[in-house]
């Protein structure tokens, strides 16, 4: 039987990459501390900052919201109902319930009202659902935060998400994306500061935190994420991790420490200007969301 490193009670959690066994209470404490350390390491925000957490009803965003609240940060939730049938219904219900449980406000919008549900958009747009979804999420998050006086957006991206993206960007040598792969994206050109306080927390660690804190989260996968290549990369990296614990954390952390600074030295940044229609920052005259809206409108007129 493994014993907790701190109190020698029976351990529930063993973290191979940190060679650490912990009981329930000490694990929850360890998790909060690790989030706090990450916030400080990357100078993400301070106690007096108002933070908007992007919540989806999944383990990562709810665990993040919980940890920030435990640590004494003023973190409110923002939820977008994507209109993906039962999946969206359940995730909205769980998110609402959770916000009541921790006593923090949750702001909700519905894509059905703003544009149209993802399954409908998907009929008119050939891009993968996940990329359309990511685009609209980024757009409404940024707009809502600005309109409501939030200076910081926090998302639940975990170590496995970041390592999988880093791996994919490295396979393709996508310098443009590698240059932006940092757990803090500064405020600039109409974009609000975005941070990822779970970037050094693995997916399993975040799920264990949710389970041990009694968070009810949506375990089902979004039906549209099926076959996402990011899962293949995650499975592959986890095979390496099993053989040699700590690989993912090293891959990601050492990129940030050694490679990221070098990439920053080469200058050439896209120029952003306000979208002609809505005023949100964009590379083109018209931003991608307004563009999508125009396209959908045109197609509807044709019907």
């Amino acid at each position, binding site marked *: 039987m493994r014993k907790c490193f701190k109190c020698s009670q029976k351990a529930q959690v063993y973290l191979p990459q940190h060679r650490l066994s912990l009981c329930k209470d000490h694990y929850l404490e360890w998790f909060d501390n690790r989030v706090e350390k990450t916030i400080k390491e990357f100078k993400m925000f301070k106690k007096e900052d108002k933070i908007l957490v992007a919540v989806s009803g999944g383990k990562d965003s709810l665990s993040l919201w919980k940890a920030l609240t435990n640590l004494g940060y003023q973190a409110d939730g923002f939820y977008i109902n994507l209109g993906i049938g039962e999946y969206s219904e359940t995730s909205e219900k769980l998110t609402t319930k959770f916000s009541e449980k921790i006593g923090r406000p949750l702001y909700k919008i519905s894509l059905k009202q703003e544009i149209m549900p993802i399954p409908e958009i998907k009929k008119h747009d050939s891009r993968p659902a996940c990329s359309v979804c990511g685009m609209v999420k980024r757009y409404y998050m940024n707009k809502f935060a600005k309109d409501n006086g939030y200076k910081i957006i926090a998302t639940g991206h975990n170590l496995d998400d970041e390592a999988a993206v880093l791996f994919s960007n490295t396979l393709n040598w996508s310098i443009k994306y590698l240059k932006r792969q940092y757990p803090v994206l500064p405020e600039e050109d109409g974009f609000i500061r975005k941070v990822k306080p779970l970037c050094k927390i693995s997916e*399993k660690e975040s799920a264990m935190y949710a389970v041990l804190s009694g968070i009810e989260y949506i375990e089902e996968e979004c039906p549209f*994420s099926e076959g996402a290549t990011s899962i293949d990369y995650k499975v592959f990296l986890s*095979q390496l991790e099993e053989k040699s614990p700590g690989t993912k954390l090293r891959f990601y952390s050492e990129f940030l420490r050694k490679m990221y600074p070098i990439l920053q030295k080469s200058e050439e940044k896209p120029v952003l200007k306000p979208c002609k229609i809505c005023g949100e920052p964009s590379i083109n005259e018209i931003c991608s969301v307004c563009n999508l809206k125009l396209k959908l409108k045109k197609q509807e007129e044709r019907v």
Partner: protein
Amino acid sequence: MDLKVKYRGQEKILNFDKDKVKAKDVLKALGLSKDFAFVVKNGEIVDENETITQNDEVRVINAISGGKIS
């Protein structure tokens, strides 16, 4: 034995030819790695070598998720 497990919001019956298995056998039966999945037995997270019997309430958590975009 037939073992009832809760997995991703659903109940599944796993079939083993022994009456006692280990948590890692349950993960293996579902094709999951211990790097991103774990077993909750009677409300507690357990080590991969923990014994599981038919009387245990078993929940398997698969932490891997896809489609997240920054």
